[in-house]
């Protein structure tokens, strides 16, 4: 089967037909609609079938986005790429993680949101040219303004350098993201599963984080409150506050100034200093308050079917406390959860999962590999492999040269992907993760297609983890305390 033989069917599920404001005229297209197919269908596709679909879809994405996305267009011109003929043609056009934060940091310091808007405009097909942002006094206000005039619902990250990346998602991509997220709970083959949210399963949700904000987790919380919790007040967060992008950015700027040895050049107003102190204190306090939060949840929702989403380290700390108090099997046995991330403050023992299950009573935990920049996840199967769905085109790059490694056998490299779901921004992205992909040998779980095996490690932690001394100042060896600045 070749790419030209593939006809991409429009979505059959009208219920899920996703639209953004008419003025932007973005509706879910036939490619994005693949997300509504069942796992059996998606992971039942043969490699040839997958790649034919991917190539056709990739051509569509490139052809429709390149003329309007200035950043993509210049990259394509520079690489002399006018059209896509093979999957790997897209590799020179994948965006580095720095692309979504390539603006000069000083624009934030000087409140030059007009220039920032122009920069952002080159990364999305949504037209931002007519929006006045002159009045904006901060990032939160700037993003509020963009959202009130367009379908944009951007996510931001903290980024490793401390500079915020802005991912120009719209309501469409937000909804696709959420659909792809809930898909983790659908079954494959004989495995039980269910449809989460909407007219499917609706249960109270426990999410020990901050309620509002524009990190991906906060977007998810908003969607869970609307789509999964029986009513929005049955979405339980540890704090009902908001994670301000301005504070996240300032924290980042402090780190950057530190790395450059220019901390003394930063001037904070007393109000900002106080906000910053509160922000850091809350960050510090959060793990401590976590056990109390879980305790109160255990009392309030005892015996109920719930959905728990938490960092593994938080859950385990709460478990330790619960073990002391002799609490166990708190929630009903058909509850389910997701425990992600290792957490830096605690080393989890081998039996952490069993002990968390014994405390909560939850036996069904979904695991997956994902990042802010990708729509959806790579679900983990019972053999511990992360399966890559056809809507994500995976690549492994040589970590030094950036060259694409052959897409066969079992290989390790820097993970990159083209995410076919987004329609209003470029889905090509290079991560900072070292991943091993098995391209050919099928997984015993029965899912077809490539999958990631073994540990996923960040290249940056590999580098800084080493014992290298040099006399030249670099970011990793000039990290110092914030206390002096915060007074």
């Amino acid at each position, binding site marked *: 089967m070749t790419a030209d033989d593939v006809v991409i069917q429009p979505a059959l599920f009208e219920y899920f037909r996703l639209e953004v404001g008419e003025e932007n005229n973005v509706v879910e297209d036939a490619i994005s609609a693949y997300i509504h197919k069942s796992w059996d269908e998606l992971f039942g596709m043969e490699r040839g079938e997958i790649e034919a679909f991917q190539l056709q879809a990739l051509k569509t994405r490139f052809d429709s986005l390149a003329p309007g996305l200035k950043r993509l267009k210049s990259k394509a011109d520079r690489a002399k790429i006018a059209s896509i003929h093979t999957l790997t043609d897209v590799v020179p056009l994948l965006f580095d993680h*720095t692309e979504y934060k390539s603006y000069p940091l*000083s624009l934030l310091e000087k409140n030059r949101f007009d220039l920032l808007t122009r920069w952002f405009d080159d990364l999305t097909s949504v037209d931002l040219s007519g929006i006045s942002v002159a009045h904006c006094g901060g990032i939160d206000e700037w993003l509020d303004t963009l959202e009130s005039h367009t379908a944009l619902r951007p996510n931001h990250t903290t980024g490793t350098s401390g500079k915020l990346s802005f991912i120009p998602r719209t309501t469409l991509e937000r909804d696709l993201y959420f659909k792809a997220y809930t898909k983790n709970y659908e079954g494959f083959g004989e495995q039980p599963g269910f449809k989460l949210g909407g007219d499917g399963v609706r249960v109270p949700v426990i999410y020990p984080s901050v309620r509002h904000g524009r990190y991906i987790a906060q977007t998810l919380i908003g969607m869970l409150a609307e789509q999964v919790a029986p009513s929005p007040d049955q979405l339980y967060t540890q704090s009902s506050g908001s994670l301000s992008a301005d504070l996240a950015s300032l924290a980042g700027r402090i780190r950057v100034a530190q790395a450059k040895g220019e901390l003394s*050049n930063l001037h904070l107003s007393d109000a900002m200093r106080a906000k910053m102190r509160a922000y850091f204190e809350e960050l510090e306090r959060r793990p401590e308050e976590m056990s109390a939060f879980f305790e109160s949840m255990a009392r309030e929702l005892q015996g109920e079917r719930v959905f728990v989403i938490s960092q593994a380290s938080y859950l385990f700390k709460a478990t330790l406390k619960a073990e002391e108090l002799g609490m166990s099997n708190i929630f009903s046995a058909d509850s389910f959860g997701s425990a992600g991330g290792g957490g830096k403050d605690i080393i989890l023992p081998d039996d952490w999962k069993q002990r968390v299950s014994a405390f909560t009573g939850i036996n069904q935990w979904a695991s997956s590999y994902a990042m802010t920049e990708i729509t959806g996840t790579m679900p983990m199967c019972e053999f511990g492999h992360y399966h890559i769905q056809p809507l994500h085109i995976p690549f492994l790059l040589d970590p030094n040269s950036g060259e694409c490694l052959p897409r066969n056998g079992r290989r390790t490299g820097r993970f990159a992907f083209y995410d076919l779901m987004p329609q209003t921004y470029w889905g090509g992205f290079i991560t900072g993760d070292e991943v091993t992909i098995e391209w050919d040998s099928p997984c015993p779980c029965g899912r077809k297609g490539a999958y990631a095996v073994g540990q996923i490690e960040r290249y940056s932690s590999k580098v800084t983890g080493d*014992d290298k*001394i040099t*006399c030249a100042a670099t*970011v990793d060896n000039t990290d110092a305390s914030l206390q002096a600045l915060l007074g």
Partner: protein
Amino acid sequence: MTTYVKIPLIIRGEIIEDYDIEHRDRSGESTLLTPDVSKYSAQLLSDNSQSLMDLYDISYDDIVEFLCALGQRLDLDHNPYWREAFEQSKRISNLSDAVMEFYYRGATRVFNKAAIDEIVENRLGGSRYLESWVSHKLIDGRTLSLRALGARAIHVIAGNLPGVAMSTVMRSALTRSDTIIKLPSNDPLTALAIVRTMIDMAPDHPLTKHFSAAYWKGGDEKVEEKIYQPQFIEKIVAWGGLNSVKHITKYLQPGIDLITLDPKSSTSLIGSEVFSSESTMREVARRAAADMGGLDQEACLNARVMYLESGTDAEGIERANKFGKYLYEALQQLPSTISNGPKRFDPALKAEINSVIDLADWYRVYADEQGLEKGAVIVSQLGEAVDFSALLSGRVGNIVPVDAIDDALDNFSAYTQTVGIYPDSLKTRIRTRAALCGGQMITSLGYATRASGAGPQDAIEPIRRMCKWIADSTCDPLSVPGPWMHPSEYS
């Protein structure tokens, strides 16, 4: 394929090859095999300060003679240790092979009588404080005799340039120190090769008997909590940044003197005189290229962010862009023994540059069309340094246009090291303020990578600080009344 590199432990002339620990090296291609240093800590540490006395049986001239003979033996073609160190450094280091070879063929430039004498003359006022008690009469009548004595020291050295190992050995020998060199993972063999050469050359020489070299993973508490104790160690000379110094600071207590040579970043100040003619622009670009690209920009003294007094209006930015283009061209013309481009271009920097390369309103990037491997010059169009300035390496410089060159001083900090300035008249005018703002070594533009060992380092005097400066007061009650005496006894 993993190759195994043996890193013996050397304790005062004895070579210990009891390898039972493996460490990954920087290249990821080889594994370092070392003895377990914690097993040998009792032997490594000397709690007998008098053991240094044998170093006072030899003269300054003997020491210089020893060092010069040592330098002769650090010969790439005949010394297998030196060759092995060179080969390993080529594998790990980002310096290009030709530049690396220039260093490994340059031992006699460091271990050289004229050069050593010059250092001693300029930094210690001659060898007399090393050789004898030097007496002065003070106004209260006493005779104050001063001597610079050696100490038991540990050097946590940097491995980005082999010169660090060479100068550590030279300074330690000159100051008659008992020296333990903590070898760096990015250059575990150079200092070791020097010490092994000493053992081959003169196994019983007092200097040989006072050099030890060991590799352990920095921060290994099992080793470090035993070593960093004031009854064993009087001085710690620590290269590197917060991460490497952090685990040392927790062992600091009275009795241990910490001398830090921390990471630095260097800069250039180029005055408007550069634009006086086309040929001046070209000439200044060549000098700036040497400061930026010499030593493949692997050293702290290399210029990274460079300030140019071009003006920041449209015309000024155009001037800056033109200079940026000349600078990139000059970079390609540098002699291959000082600059060849890095072996591995930092992928993180590559990502940053690729993300701004099309933002022409903010950054103008001069680089080869094929890629960044030959280096690059980024001219900031907004008059401020790139946000990723801490990553600048691999012969990538950032030109920041300013209206007045004095404005650049706002960006100086404690991390600023070398400041290359053009023209010299600007240097004379601005140097005091540049130094007060953080600049530590000031030089005519073009000579940043040619710093002389005869000067102070990073605005401190490491050689003086490696010594214990002992004062001996001789007082005769007839001329210096004692505090026990009543005024009637001496008035």
